[in-house]
């Protein structure tokens, strides 16, 4: 049974055209994360929500925004995608925000920017 679902799996957008990626979870976890992963690189945390509390990483560009309308759903909005934003975007959840908590990842959305 899918626990963390990401839609779409593949997204193509044009340079500067806003795009929204979706993540949903059936685990009822408090924390939802968004990571950016470029080819052969480590996943890089963009931000996370602890319940409704939004936590942005210091080096996340303003071009990236997020919304969490309820426990189950979280969205990543890229306001004006540039060529450098082409990457795999991974959503993850964890029960709490402790380093001992396992993070459960979705399959990712591969974003292509033309």
């Amino acid at each position, binding site marked *: 049974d899918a626990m963390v679902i990401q839609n779409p799996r593949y997204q193509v957008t044009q340079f500067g055209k806003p795009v929204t990626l979706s993540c949903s979870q059936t685990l009822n976890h408090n924390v939802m994360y968004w990571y950016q992963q470029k080819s052969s690189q480590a996943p890089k945390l963009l931000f996370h929500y602890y319940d409704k509390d939004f936590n942005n990483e210091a080096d996340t560009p303003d071009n990236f925004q997020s919304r969490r309308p309820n426990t189950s759903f979280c969205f990543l909005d890229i306001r004006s995608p540039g060529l450098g934003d082409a990457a795999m975007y991974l959503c993850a959840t964890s029960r709490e*925000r402790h380093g001992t908590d*396992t993070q459960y990842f979705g399959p990712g959305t591969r974003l292509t920017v033309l």
Partner: protein
Amino acid sequence: SQQGEEDPQALSIQEGENATMNCSYKTSINNLQWYRQNSGRGLVHLILIRSNEREKHSGRLRVTLDTSKKSSSLLITASRAADTASYFCATDARSGGSQGNLIFGKGTKLSVKP
């Protein structure tokens, strides 16, 4: 700055052989986790080792942690073609506003040939 660094970056072995991957990190940690990522997919949690533990086993996986050297190793015994994937270590940020967040290394790409 990146916390974990895995080596080797890529490893190619024959089925049945053991695979050893290493991870080094820079600052004190509470625990260290290993994750696996199949090509184009999300990450899957494999094992967590706490800072007061030296070794942990899970099936064909064996993880060691040497906090004095700030390093960890992941050993996969009797490898199978299905073990082909990238393997990432992840450490938790021990203090500050990012406490509980995971910082991933660049990963080791393992290829197991049948």
